[in-house]
């Protein structure tokens, strides 16, 4: 800023005059007019631009672009492979699921069949056992009845005996002479009647 106070010192030369003289910078290093239009510098700029563009072009076309293209292609390949693998796995998963469902259904059917068979088996055994038990019960009942009948018969005989004895004793006590045969016949007809 301080240098500008002396700007008036060279102010006598008009900027246009300096430009016409081919100078682009005043004595203080300030620009005269548009530096873009200064012909002195154009050769320098064009030369360095050409160098720069050639360098960038070779860096890009030899190294950078093929490398990035390779990276992108590789990534595309990886993604395609991964998607294919994922599709495969998905198909496998669906297959596995259907196999599992089938196995489950089979197992259910098996279980139902086994249950039915077992039920039938148990029913048969049960019927068997019931029949056996019935037969035993009826056998035992028959036996019991037979025994009861025997006992009853035995009891009747005993009653007859006791009655005969009692009748003979009574007849003897009455002073009669008991004919055993007659007493027995009489008792037997009474007991039966």
């Amino acid at each position: 800023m301080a240098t500008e106070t002396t700007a008036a010192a060279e102010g006598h030369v008009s900027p246009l005059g300096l430009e016409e003289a081919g100078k682009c910078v005043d004595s203080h290093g300030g620009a005269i007019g548009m530096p873009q239009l200064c012909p002195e510098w154009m050769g320098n700029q064009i030369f360095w631009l050409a160098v720069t563009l050639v360098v960038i072009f070779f860096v890009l076309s030899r190294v950078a672009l093929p490398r990035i293209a390779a990276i992108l292609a590789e990534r595309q390949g990886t993604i395609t492979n991964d998607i294919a693998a994922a599709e495969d796995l998905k198909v496998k998963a669906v297959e596995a699921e259907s196999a599992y469902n089938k196995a489950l259904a089979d197992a259910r059917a098996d279980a139902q069949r086994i249950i039915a068979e077992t039920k039938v088996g148990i029913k048969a055994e049960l019927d068997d056992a019931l029949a056996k038990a019935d037969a035993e019960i009826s056998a035992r009942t028959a036996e019991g009845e037979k025994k009861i009948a025997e006992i009853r018969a035995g009891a009747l005989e005993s009653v007859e005996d006791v009655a005969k004895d009692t009748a003979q004793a009574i007849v003897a006590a009455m002073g009669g002479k008991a004919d055993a045969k007659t007493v027995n016949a009489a008792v037997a007809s009474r007991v039966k009647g």
Partner: protein
Amino acid sequence: MATETQDTAAQGMELVFHPMDQFIVKPLFGDGPVGMFTVTNVTLWMALAVLATIGLLVLGTSGRSTIPTRIQSIAELFYGFVRKMVEDVAGKDALPYFPYIMTLFVFIVFSNVLGLLPGAFTTTSHIAVTAVLAMAVFLTVTLMGFIKHGLGFLGVFWISAAPLPLRPILAMIEVISYFVRPVSHSIRLAGNMMAGHAVIKVFAAFAPMILIGWIGVLVTPLSIIAITAIYALEVLVAFIQAYVFAILTCVYLKDALHPHH
């Protein structure tokens, strides 16, 4: 420009307006004249653009990772962006010219962005630079058109879709617009870069107002806000102008490859 400062003296301080000084080409070493091969600030900032290119597109991709690092994904973004642009605008048969367009795009992007660093020199703000770029595109495209299609390339000027009486008139307009292309192509880029940087410098010159008078309390914050806003705009412009330059190159390339409308 220096004369403007003479009127603004106040209380021993004055505002300094040198918006164009940032575009001066200087030798990097010593103080001699600027010859064709002198190492200048142009050399420095172009070299930095080359280094940035190498850093992003070569070193950034040296990992070659399938899952990219951040810098590698930026490099891939550049690649994919320009490649898609070439393919969409100029067609699949323009892909052999993709490295050429990529070179232009990368150089312009890095020059523009590096030029936004404070104190930097913006190589793409010079007509000499952008005119060479634009003329290179113009000559390449024109030569290629004639090599590929012979005189049939002139069909680019003959609008067969228009009614016959109109065609000669349209052809004249087409010829004129064809030769204006390199001019607009180069001035668009240089003008955008120069204007933005000069405006920032003008606003920056108002910033020390607070040291000069009470009005500076108002002007200084305003100028700083304006610098910030224009800087943001310039960041956008830096990319957009590189994009525009590249896409126009693709459009011209398409005309050369398919001259018949």
